[in-house]
C-alpha cells in the first residue's frame, strides 16, 4: 500500500507500531509480573522451610523432635488443607510430616544441594511446593513445603490473574492517545508547508515577485523551499530580460523613426513630405505591431483583473471615430448600455477591439458604417459593410504576416494575429462570418467576471 501523504504514511506506520506494542507490552508486563510472583512465592516457601527448621531440635538421646507452636500447627493441619510440610533426613526417610500417614509430600524428591521447586497431584489438588536443604545441628535435612494452588488466597496470584481484564486494557487507550498527539504534532509541523503551498498558488507570470516563506519552516523542508525560491529568482530574471528586450527594442526602433519623422516634417516640398509621412506612418505601424507581438508573447492576464467591455468598446469607438470620419465613414457603438464586466486586461482588450475596428474601417467603402456591438453575455461583435471574408480565408487571416494583397505596403498582416493572441490570453474565442446583408462580422467571446 502506498500513501501519497506524509502524515498518513507516518500515522499508518504508527498504527502498526501501536498495534504491535499494545499486544506485546501487556504480554511482557504479564510475563514480568508472573515471574516476580513466582519469585515471591519461592521466597515464601523458603521462609516456611526456615521456620520449620528453627523448631527442629535434637534430644539428648539423639532423636529429633519438631515442636511447632499451636498457630503453625493449625496452619499446616490437614483440615485447613492449604499448606503442608515434610521433613526428610539424608537417607530420604520421612521424620515428620503434616500428612497423617507421615508420607512425603513429594515422593520423587531427589534431595538436591540447591532448593528444588516441585509440583505434584494430591487427590484433586495440584500441589506446588519446594524441597529446601537445611543444616540443623550439623545434620542435613530436606524440608518439603507445599501450597495448594486451587486455593488462591494469595494476593500476588490474584494480581497476576487480574492483570489482563483489569489493568492490561489501559495500555490501549494510552497508545491511542499517543496516536492522536502524533497527528496533532504532524499537523503543526507541516503547517508552514501548507502555508507555503498557499503562497505558491498565487505565483504566476503576472506575479513573479512572490517568494515562499522560510520562517517557521521545518529544517528538513527548508532546502526544498530555498531551491524553489532560487528557481523563481531565475524565472523572474527571464521574464525581466524579456520585458527589457521589448522596451529596449521599442526605444531603438522608434527613436530613429522619430528623427526621420521630424526631419520630414521640416521638408519644403509638400508632395514629398506627405508621401514620406505616409511611409513613416506605415513603418511605425509595423514596428508597433512587431513590438505588440513580442510583448504579447509573454503576456498573461492577471486572474484578479477585471475590465468593463462596454467601456473598452466606447473608448475604441471614440479613438477610431476621427479616423473613420476623415475617411468618410462612421462608427457606432450598439448593444447593451450598462457595464459588462469580464475577466481581463482593459489595455490589451482595447488593442484587440481597436485592431478589428481599424481593419473594418480600412477595408470598407466610403459612406459605410462600422458597428461595435456589445452583448451583456460578454460577446463583442465588429460588423462592417465591406466585401466580407471569403470562406476559404477565415482560418488564414489570423496567421502572422498573412495578407490578401502582398503588394500593399504599410501593413505586415499582424493585426488579426495580435487580436487572436489577446483573445487566447483571455481564454476567449474569436470567429468570423459574413453577414446576411453583406460585410464581415467578427465575434469575440469572453468569460464574464463573477
Amino acid at each position, binding site marked *: 500500500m502506498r500513501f501519497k501523504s506524509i502524515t498518513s504514511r507516518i500515522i499508518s506506520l504508527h498504527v502498526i507500531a501501536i498495534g504491535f506494542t499494545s499486544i506485546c507490552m501487556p504480554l511482557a508486563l504479564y510475563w514480568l509480573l508472573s515471574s516476580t510472583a513466582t519469585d515471591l512465592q519461592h521466597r515464601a516457601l523458603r521462609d516456611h522451610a526456615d521456620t520449620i527448621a528453627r523448631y527442629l531440635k535434637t534430644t539428648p538421646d539423639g532423636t529429633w523432635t519438631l515442636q511447632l507452636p499451636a498457630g503453625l500447627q493449625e496452619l499446616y493441619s490437614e483440615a485447613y488443607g492449604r499448606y503442608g510440610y515434610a521433613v526428610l533426613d539424608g537417607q530420604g526417610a520421612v521424620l515428620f510430616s503434616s500428612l497423617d500417614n507421615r508420607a512425603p509430600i513429594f515422593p520423587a524428591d531427589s534431595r538436591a544441594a540447591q532448593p528444588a521447586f516441585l509440583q505434584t497431584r494430591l487427590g484433586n489438588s495440584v500441589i506446588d511446593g519446594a524441597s529446601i536443604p537445611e543444616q540443623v545441628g550439623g545434620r542435613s535435612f530436606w524440608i518439603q513445603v507445599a501450597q495448594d494452588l486451587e486455593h488462591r488466597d494469595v494476593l500476588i496470584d490474584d494480581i497476576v490473574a487480574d492483570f489482563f481484564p483489569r489493568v492490561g486494557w489501559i495500555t490501549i487507550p494510552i497508545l491511542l492517545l499517543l496516536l492522536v498527539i502524533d497527528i496533532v504534532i504532524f499537523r503543526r509541523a507541516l503547517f508552514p508547508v501548507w502555508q507555503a503551498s498557499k503562497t505558491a498558488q498565487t505565483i504566476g507570470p503576472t506575479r513573479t515577485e512572490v517568494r515562499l516563506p522560510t520562517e517557521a519552516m521545518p529544517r528538513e523542508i527548508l532546502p526544498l523551499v530555498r531551491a524553489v525560491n532560487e528557481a523563481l529568482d531565475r524565472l523572474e530574471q527571464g521574464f525581466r530580460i524579456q520585458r527589457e528586450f*521589448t*522596451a*529596449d527594442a*521599442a*526605444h*531603438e*526602433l*522608434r*527613436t*530613429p*523613426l*522619430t*528623427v*526621420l*519623422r*521630424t*526631419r520630414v*516634417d*521640416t521638408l519644403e516640398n509638400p508632395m514629398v513630405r506627405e508621401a514620406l509621412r505616409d511611409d*513613416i506612418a506605415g513603418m*511605425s505601424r509595423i514596428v*508597433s505591431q512587431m*513590438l505588440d507581438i513580442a*510583448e504579447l508573447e509573454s*503576456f498573461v492576464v492577471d486572474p484578479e483583473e477585471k475590465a468593463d467591455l462596454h467601456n473598452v468598446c*466606447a473608448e475604441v*469607438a*471614440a*479613438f477610431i*471615430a*476621427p479616423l473613420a*470620419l476623415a475617411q468618410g465613414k*462612421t*462608427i*457606432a*457603438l*450598439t*448593444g447593451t*448600455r450598462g457595464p459588462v464586466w469580464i475577466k481581463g*486586461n482593459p*489595455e*490589451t482588450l482595447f488593442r484587440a477591439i481597436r485592431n478589428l475596428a481599424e481593419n473594418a474601417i480600412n477595408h470598407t467603402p466610403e459612406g459605410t458604417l462600422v458597428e*461595435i456591438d456589445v452583448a451583456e453575455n460578454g460577446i463583442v461583435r465588429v460588423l462592417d459593410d465591406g466585401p466580407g471574408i471569403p470562406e476559404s480565408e477565415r482560418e488564414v487571416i489570423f496567421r502572422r504576416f498573412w495578407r490578401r494583397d502582398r503588394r500593399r505596403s504599410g501593413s505586415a498582416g499582424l493585426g488579426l494575429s495580435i487580436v487572436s493572441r489577446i483573445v487566447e490570453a483571455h481564454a476567449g474565442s474569436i470567429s468570423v462570418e459574413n453577414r446576411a446583408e453583406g460585410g464581415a462580422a467578427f465575434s469575440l467571446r469572453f468569460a464574464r467576471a463573477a
Partner: protein
Amino acid sequence: MRLLVIEDNLELAELLRKGLNSAGFVADVVNTAGDARTALATTRFAAVVLDLGLPDGDGLSVLRDLRERKDTTPVLVLTARSGVRERVTGLRSGADDYLVKPFAFEELVARIQALLRRPGDLLGQALNVGNVAFDTEARQVFVDQQPQFFSAREMAVLEILMRRSGRVVAKKLVEDHLFGLSSDGGSNAVEVYIHRLRRQLADAGAQVQIHTIRGVGYLIAEGKEP
C-alpha cells in the same frame, strides 16, 4: 519660454532644439539623466520634455526626483514604450502628459503649449474650428467674424465640443457638464441641443460639422457644409 529637452539621441535632440526654437521657445538640451538633474537643480524651466530611455538611468527616476522636491514644472514624457503597463506608470510618476514615439512635431508643440497654459490661466482664449470662433471670455460665438446668438445651454454644449475638437466627447460628459452629476436632464435633452446647434450653424454658413458617434458621443470637426 525656456524649455529643457532631455533626449539621449543626439540627432533627435538637435532636431527638437531647432524645431522648438523656430516655434518660439528657447530649448536647452541635455543627453543624460545626470545632466538633467544638474540643469533642473540650477535653472527654472517653463516645461520639461523628457525621454524615458536614457543611457545613465531611467527617465522616470528623474521625474520622481523632481516631484519629490515638490517641483511642479510641467513634464511631457516622450516614450518609445507603448506597452501595457508603461503608460500608467509614467503618468503615476507625475508626468503631465506623454507622447509615444514617433510623433508629429506639430503635436509636440501643441502639447507643450497646452501644458504651459494649463494651470492658473483661466482660459481666456479663443477656440477655433473652421470658420467658427468661440470667445470663452466674452461668451460670444462668431461664424466668419459674424456674431451668432445661442442660448446659454447651447453655448455650453458648443464650448465643450470645441475644446475637444477632432476628438469624441462622450454624451455622458456633455450631460454632466450641462446638468451636473446628480440631476438627470432627460435622455434626449442633449440631442435636442445638438440638433439646434447643427441647424443654426448651418444656417450661419459654418464650415464645421457636429458628428454623432452613436452609442458614444459627439465630435466637432472642420467640414464641408452638410
